[in-house]
């Protein structure tokens, strides 16, 4: 299959999924509603629910995929993902402190968003403050993983002592959802992501030079420390924003870059980076679509769907995904 055909498949998947996400749900919207043919209720659903939700899934999925790709290349570890630096755990802890710590149910969406962002940025700052002490970036990865374990343990402590209603609110946030964003909040969510997406092609060359190793990148004139720092910060910002609005979303950041490498049979970032963005966005829209169980009155947690979809992908990678590995 030629590369052009593969790109067409990527775009076709997106072209099919986006309208499906806009039209399908507990209330079916006719296609004509997007061209002024809908009633008042349908217009409200489209504007306040479907459009923000679809854009959140597209942006969030693409952001997690890009963060995963950055982390996998920077740490030269195929199992690295946005959650690997402990950023999502940091968000969870901050939200946990807010909703569980005081035993008071916090109902303000803004407070949860702010707490999640502060949590991930706080972990990021800790990592950045210690990063310069290590000659090897793998040490930073280990620090991130340990911070993740530490913050998860703190969350468990908070959960153990929380009252039922607070625990419920926290658990619901932890399920992950692309439906928490209001139309008016979309700019706050999308602008940082779009800015990072826009700048990311400028890192294609350094990312490719990092594939064979840091020493090689240095001999090719890459300022390795600076590039690593920029990519870690960019990932931190993306994960912070996405986790803040959508909760800790698993697997997409890990799986989408691998899917891109498998589909295009190359680790070259000139291909993998845009492909990961498209596939990450598509994967998130697909998971969200499945999670809301169209044609029924029920929904399942987004993270449940992500795990059902993501785990087989990772298992497939272990057994068959030779091309997806970036290390020998």
């Amino acid at each position, binding site marked *: 299959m030629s590369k052009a055909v593969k790109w067409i498949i990527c775009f076709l998947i997106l072209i099919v999924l986006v309208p499906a996400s806009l039209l399908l749900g507990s209330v079916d919207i006719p296609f004509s509603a997007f061209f002024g043919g809908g009633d008042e209720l349908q217009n409200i659903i489209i504007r306040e629910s479907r459009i923000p939700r679809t854009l959140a899934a597209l942006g969030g999925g693409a952001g997690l995929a890009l963060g995963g790709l950055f982390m996998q290349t920077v740490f*030269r570890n195929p199992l690295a993902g946005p959650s690997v630096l402990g950023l999502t755990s940091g968000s969870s802890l901050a939200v946990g402190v807010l909703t569980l710590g005081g035993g008071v149910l916090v109902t303000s969406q803004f407070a949860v968003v702010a707490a999640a962002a502060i949590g991930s940025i706080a972990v990021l700052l800790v990592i950045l403050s210690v990063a310069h002490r290590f000659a090897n970036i793998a040490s930073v990865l280990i620090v991130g993983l340990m911070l993740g374990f530490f913050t998860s343990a703190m969350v468990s402590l908070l959960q153990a002592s929380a009252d039922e209603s607070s625990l419920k609110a926290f658990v619901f946030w932890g399920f992950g959802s692309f439906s928490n964003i209001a139309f008016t909040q979309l700019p706050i969510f999308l602008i940082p992501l779009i800015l990072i997406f826009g700048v990311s*092609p*400028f890192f*294609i*060359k350094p990312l*490719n*030079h990092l*594939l*064979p*190793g840091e*020493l*090689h990148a*240095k*001999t*090719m*004139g*890459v*300022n390795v420390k600076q590039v690593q720092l920029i990519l870690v910060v960019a990932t931190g910002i993306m994960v912070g924003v996405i986790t803040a609005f959508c909760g800790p979303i698993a697997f997409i950041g890990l799986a989408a870059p691998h899917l891109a*490498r498998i589909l295009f*049979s*190359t*680790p*070259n970032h*000139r291909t993998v980076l845009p492909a990961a963005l498209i596939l990450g966005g598509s994967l998130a829209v697909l998971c969200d679509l499945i999670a809301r169980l169209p044609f029924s009155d029920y929904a399942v947690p987004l993270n449940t769907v992500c795990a059902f979809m993501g785990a087989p992908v990772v298992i497939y990678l272990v057994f068959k995904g*030779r*091309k997806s*590995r*970036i*290390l*020998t």
Partner: protein
Amino acid sequence: MIQTERISVGYGSRVLVRELDLLLPKGSVTAFIGSNGTGKSSLMRVLNGLQEPLSGKVSWNGKDIADFDRKEKAKMAASLYSNFSRVEGFTVAELVALGRSNFTGFFGKLNAEDYAKIDEVIETVGIASLKEKELTTLSDGEFRKAMLAKLLAQDTDILFLDEPTTHLDLPAALDFVQVLKNLALQGKTIVMSTHHLALAFKMADHILLFDGNGKAAFGNAKEMMNHELLCGFLKTDKIRVENGNLLFDL
């Protein structure tokens, strides 16, 4: 041309090379010889500007390397280090294309000139038939040649090669060294470290011996082929020199 002035190399209080003066002319091959841990790779990194010297100065073509920025260095010198990973999924052509990085724009798009250069260097190192092969399917010798092609695609005056013949069988090593010799004849300045004594003396114009305690001996290959010198620096009594040939007492 590479020149050093009273260069010292080491780590903290441990000095591996002390106040060394070198002059490696354009088109010459210099072989670094010494036991493991004596400072061959460290000096190479210092000469390449990847590691700070303890003291002293390195210059390329008369210009202090401290005055080159990263990109300029990559345009002047290309390096082959043994810890280069075989990126799975990369073909030989894709690997060699990395060497064109300094000639491409922000997004690394190759033009006709880049593709022509890639074909030319793959041909030069004798692996034209492997151009579309994945790196993971290559033998060690073929992979080293692919790496050398990547270095040549960088189109630099200077080549640094850290133990390039390690793990190669003798025919592959001879083949590789022949390519290097031809490159030197074309005007490339080549610096390589090796444990392959016989090959080093056969191909190099200059030899630098390391003892790892700050002492180094530098000279042309003919004058360095000396029993006392070699045995003293390599801490062995099993090397003999007879009629300009190296012999090993076993």
